[in-house]
């Protein structure tokens, strides 16, 4: 899994730069932002389902990280710590009154890059099962909708494990859940995602 390797392999380099940033080296912190911005943004995008919300949450993640850098004590990988902050930031945003009011009026979970029309027509090939069709590139839109239809907590598990490629232990660290809860929660989230996809295909 790319995400796991990405988080673990760069750990020594991260640690050097985190220590520099803790001493007030702003350039070192910017280097960390550059290294992780795409991963954190992508995770926020898949959790929030909206580019503008994802940008806000991802930027806030780095600002919180900067403000609490001096308290980071290298017990987890810096990348995992960032995911933990991002998960909390997204969760707070999803639970905020402002976001809920917005979600009532704007279908936030429609993918930002959705091409209206055509996507359902692609599901008409009877020789392929609905899930086989997902291997096609255009299946992304249906997949994003099915992910977006999950409740917040299972969606976060799917994003961290199956999209970002974190290990079970890293997912547990990032979400604050027990390892056993991550395992059972992820199994149920995946089962529900498959149901959502079948619903997308047949509905």
């Amino acid at each position, binding site marked *: 899994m790319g995400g796991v390797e990405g988080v673990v392999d760069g750990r020594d380099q991260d640690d050097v730069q985190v220590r520099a940033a803790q001493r007030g080296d702003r350039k070192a912190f910017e280097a960390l932002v550059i290294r992780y911005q795409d991963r954190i943004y992508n995770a926020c995008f898949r959790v929030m389902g909206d580019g503008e919300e994802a*940008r806000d949450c991802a930027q806030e993640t780095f600002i919180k990280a900067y403000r609490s850098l001096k308290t980071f004590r290298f017990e987890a990988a810096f990348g995992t710590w960032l995911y933990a902050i991002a998960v909390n930031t997204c969760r707070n945003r999803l639970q905020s009154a402002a976001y809920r009011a917005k979600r009532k009026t704007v279908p936030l979970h429609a993918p930002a890059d959705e091409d209206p029309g055509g996507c359902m027509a692609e599901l008409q090939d009877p020789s392929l099962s609905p899930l086989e069709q997902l291997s096609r590139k255009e299946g992304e839109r249906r997949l994003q909708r099915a992910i977006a239809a999950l409740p917040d907590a299972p969606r976060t598990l799917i994003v961290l494990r199956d999209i970002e490629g974190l290990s079970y232990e890293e997912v547990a660290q990032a979400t604050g859940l027990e390892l056993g809860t991550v395992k059972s929660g992820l199994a149920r989230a995946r089962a529900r995602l498959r149901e959502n996809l079948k619903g997308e295909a047949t509905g």
Partner: protein
Amino acid sequence: MTCREIQEQLSLYVDHELDAEDEAAVREHLEGCPACREALRDLELCLQAMRDMPRHSAPPGFLEGVSDRLEAGGRWKRRLEGVWELLRSKRPLEVVGVLATAVVVVLAYQVFDGRQKTLLSPPDDAVAPPRAAYERSLELAEAPVAEQVTRVRDAPPLLRLRVVKTVGPEAAGGSAEPGGRADSQAAGDGFERHTREKAARSVGAPEADVAADGLEPLSLAKVREKPPVLSQAALEEKLESAEKKPALSPDALLSAVEAAILGCGGTLIGVEPGPDHPDSRVLSFRVPAERYDALLQELRPLGRLEIQEPAGLARGAGEPWHLELILQP
């Protein structure tokens, strides 16, 4: 095992997270069961599709946005601290000057209602992204000076910290137990509910339950004046510097507390609306026992900290503690 039981194991099977015995049992079942093979194929296709999803890169200007927001926060903080310093200096002329300026600004604010941002913001603040949470936390900075002064003088927010449960080896039967077995009985989106219920069980447990865990009844006590790590002088200096800081907005306070918890190796379990006040929040979280004192040090500068903990609390045990923090801005 039944097909249903096998299919519940498939998620761990594809991730090679089953122990050898269970993995062999699943593999054997799959060889003779087309329906479960079909379920496995569906799952693998689904996971492959997620791996194949294009990744979205951070939008252009992302780093600059982070830097600008950090700069904006630092700049306003310095300005507010300057005003505060002046008010504390007890130099009558300057204080009169500040108050006169405040009156002028309030009048200007009333005349140009709705344009106070233009009056008070420096031009280079225009690049800060709108609607951002961090910017909301700066609402104090954008308020008229008179209001800033009043709010800076307000009592700092109240932080009521309660040690709900210390999870030692003898008490590990409840929330510390890996949730695999019990969790697998919950269905569908019960996961979210389960997580919340679990938090409620472990965090919101009545005191009788806490006593049942071998802890003495809780007693509300003001924060001790001398934490073990800080010297008296260092503590006084820290408290004094905390007093100089302006009161944080509810959002900024929540962010700062979250950062303190995460920074001390803690994990948040949930945030719920709190009692008495619309901006009040109840955070439930775990923190390693040995980091408890470090957490107190991080929280103290943020407001008036009241601590409720069992008598004779033994620090340094290696297990995480469940804590509850009520924020009342």
